């Protein structure tokens, strides 16, 4: 997707068309994919609070 002025360009690699078997995660650490993977791993290692609970007040 082309970013228009003011649009938010994320750091998440667009893998919606990726071939699961052909995807290569190793290699240049400066690729978008490497950065996405690092963020993913960081989130998993520091999950904060994955679960949001709601006790119905109704």
């Amino acid at each position: 997707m082309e970013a228009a002025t003011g649009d938010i360009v994320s750091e998440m690699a667009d893998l919606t068309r990726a071939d699961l078997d052909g995807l290569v995660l190793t290699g240049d650490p400066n690729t978008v994919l490497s950065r996405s993977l690092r963020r993913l791993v960081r989130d998993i290692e520091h999950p904060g609070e994955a679960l949001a609970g709601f006790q119905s007040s109704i």
Partner: protein
Amino acid sequence: MTPGPPGGTGSTFGPGSAFGTGTGSRPGRIGGSADRPAGTHVLARAEFDILAAGAGGTDGVLRDAQLSRRVLLLRAVVDSAAERGTPLQAELRHALALLSDAQRRDRAAVQSVLLSPNIGAWATHCLSRLRRSGPPEEDLAYLVGLAAAAAIRAGLDFEVTVRPTRAGVMFPTLGRADLPPGTGEVRVRHRGGSGSLELAGLETIAVGDATGNDTRVWRPLRLLSSTAGGERISVLLDDLDPYRGHQGLPVAGRLSRAEVADWQARLDEAWLLLTHGHQARAMAIARGVAAFVPLRATASAPELSASSRDAFGAVALTCPTDGITLAGALVHEFQHAKLSALLDLVPLHGRSGGELFYAPWRSDPRPVRGLLQGAYAYLGLCDFWQVHRASAGAPGARLAEFEFARWRDQVRRTLPTLAASGELTPEGSRFIGGMERQAAELCRAVVPDRPAAFARIASADHRTTWRLRNLRPEPETVAARADAWLAGRACPAVPPVPARVITGRPAFHMTGRIRLARLAVTEPEQFDQVRHNPGALAALAPPATVADARYVSGDAAGAARAYRDELVRDPARIDAWTGLALACRDLPDPAGSGLTDGGLTGSRLTGGGPLDAAPEEVLALAGEITSRSGSAPDPLGLAAWLAAGTAPPASAG
């Protein structure tokens, strides 16, 4: 978002969707040796602003980004497992190859499986374990069932070897094969033309069989569907997947047909409500919620709903008592899902600095990330109640007025805390700005006096109870004051020291007063019938007491006397301290209320005094005095002594 029948015929991802069909095209490799460079997801500013206002859905880029996240997670799991030398390497390679074949046949079918909620939960769990403690073989074996489910949905002919786990063999989005104990590796064969699945030579089933009947081996996932106002929702009822309760939720086991019928009835009621006046939100929920995970009701959580950042698309909840409960829970949890998906794409806050804050919807202190999630969920709920109060007949309208009045004010008061936290990114500040504008708009609506008044009671009750539960005054100050009280001296002047916020377990404590306030609004005749009957009160609005009923009835002086009596008997009863603080605040003339010693005590408590301003200080001091002397001080006398800086009342000791 719910996958349709296998074979691709019922896929919701048709031509022109965000995913496209992928038919006939071989996707390029992405990464170090990619045919094309990997781009990144881009969120349109207008879409961001719609989300900030509490509206919008998870279509488009938010769902695309979740798909990318799943692809990345899955590949990371396989690569990490290989690095760790798992003995399942061959099976994992075959599973990936099967997924790849299925992608080439029907990309949308594979995407529907990858986006099913538990794939995220499973992959996150696996990757976390792989990084901490090595290959979790039983967990990794799940990938084979995942690949098989995708291949079945893509209509492939295939044969694959699977290792049953304690939970059998799960085929996500389809069902589970429960094989006899001790069964080793088994072959699974699928014929795409007939849609038949042969399980270990034990049984051949038609995967697309819509009857949902269990067989000797096969447990199909049941699909709930409802249509109202020309709109349809379909949601899997997931009582099978081993990763559905990964966050320690008390998941229910296999539901009976009667229980499934109950869930279907609640969905029908909720869907009727949601499509009546909330069409945009209803359709966003229909596209974004893929599964309900039934939870067991427990004594501490008879009604609970929850969602997980890792299980995008799932709502875990106890069986709702009625349609409005389910509609509210869906609105609430879908807000969490939207925000979680947005946070995966755009950081709105940094790593928590450790500061904890008051959240009006929780009994425990919350970090910024939790406060933001709660505020966003309740902003969506306010919009729901705003519409519902105009369309529902009593008592639904009364409940809606009460909930709307309560939460719009609480959300509006919470947002400045977030804005001032110092933890927001620039995008986070913009997001909060959008929420503030929407909350201000909601606060311009007129609410009738009665529900507005009871909403204020509920809000004040919650805040005071929260202070009593979570704030701890400085111990040296408490000790110095106890010394003075017990010695018959005036309360010593000490420089103010902020109370410490203690961390606690997730909690949703609700006082009997709040339950009674809601009853008084929604069912005033019933409230009048039970308000003098302790047994009926405790049954209808546990743990309500007669003191609570007096307060909710507007008898502040009578309530204050009753709370004082309760506290002399049990000075640690936090709910009674809250009640006393609320009642004193409402006393028009404490000196003339018959509560006080010649007016001195009462005059010091006009507006609640220390009980209102710092109830945790009065509670801590009462506890210290009781501990040292063996008898509980008069709570009103103690509060007045704190306020006055004079000698204790003559009766003190």
